[in-house]
């Protein structure tokens, strides 16, 4: 349990315990439950009427713009973490602070652009 990867061993152990809990709950369920499937019971639920077409139906996805926005910003945000722990270290100070404002400026500009393109309001 020592060393850098030793601590991740414990994380892996807890992951295994979590999987065991879920498997145990489902196993208990399997032992206790009835199983009487009928074709009606296994149809897709659409408020009680027969389903129309198939479930993976086409619809207008208006969210794809947010995906673009997210990809742009999340990739930037990952770089924040290593920077955040050292930006105040001796010898950095004002220079890194100025860099931070450049970074914030870029992100703010991105949001401003999305705003001007009217992707944030639908009505």
């Amino acid at each position, binding site marked *: 349990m020592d060393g850098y990867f030793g601590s991740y061993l414990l994380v892996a152990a807890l992951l295994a315990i979590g999987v065991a809990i879920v498997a145990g709950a489902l196993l208990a*369920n399997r032992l206790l439950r009835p199983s009487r499937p009928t074709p009606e019971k296994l149809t897709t639920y659409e408020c009680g009427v027969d389903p129309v077409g198939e479930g993976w139906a086409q619809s207008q996805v208006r969210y794809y713009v947010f995906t673009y926005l997210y990809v742009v910003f999340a990739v930037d945000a990952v770089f924040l973490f290593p920077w955040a722990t050292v930006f105040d270290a001796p010898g950095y100070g004002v220079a890194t602070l100025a860099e931070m404002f450049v970074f914030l400026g870029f992100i703010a500009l991105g949001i401003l652009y999305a705003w001007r393109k009217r992707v944030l309001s639908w009505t």
Partner: protein
Amino acid sequence: MLDVVLSLVVILAVFLVLPLVVGQAEHKVMAHMQSRLGPMYAGRFHGWAQLIADGVKFAQKEDVVPAAADRRVFMIAPGVALVPYLVVLIVIPIDRGAVAVDLDLGLFFVLAVMGVGVLGSVMAGWASANKYSLLGGMRVAAQLMSYELPLVLAASSVAMAAGTLSLPGIVEAWQWWWLPWQAVGGVVFFVAGLAELRRPPFDMPVAESEIIMGPLTEYTGMRFALFMLTEYVGIVVLSFLTTVLFLGGWHGPLLPGWIWTLVKVFALAFVVIWLRVSYPRLREDQLQKLAWAGLVPLALLQLAITGVVKVLT
């Protein structure tokens, strides 16, 4: 070895007991806020055993997998949703020195693992082969992407303030004047976390009046119960994280540290329930607008404040 086993036992106790306490508190608090009694029968005394009775009922229910569903993905989705919240608990300190593993990138680990949990709902939404589930799954995905960013930015503001990513290290560095200093970030983190959990008023993905139960529409029995448990474990984890990052964890006068942690966690869980009773559901576009035009700029402002104060002092 013994203390490792002990810490795992404590984590499992937190994982299995606190969500039930929060769930029961939700039953009773909501009821009294709405001038009703809530569960009163199970266990005789004010319905304290209601959730245990629910669990027994769920364990006996038939497991219906729709014929049209993508069977295997449908069946593992509840596990994918639930297990990450258990794994996250391993890095959360309850008292000084009382943490199972002090990972040096703890905060990063937490955000990454919680990101996996949300895949469970997306998987459920897709695999159900149901139009309502699919719509709900889309909304889940959109909501999670929009609110992940303010969550990450607010969390990194604390990392800047403390100069470390280790959660015990952050609490160790915490001082009382961080409360006003990090207040904006704290609110942004908590609100974005609520949205990640899809708790009301951010429950558009499961809006029962229009898309039945969103990704959970086709789920029955134990698998549905696991999704419900996920929601309440999520409340516990969010309350713990907000406590540790923004409210100073174990810091507090007189009482022992772990009691302070639990007091703060329960206070936040109460706020989560309170918000559910108080606010109507946000419409989908209002939801997106709140994230991008409200929370993200506020989080950026918090980063600027943190950076300036930290460098100048």
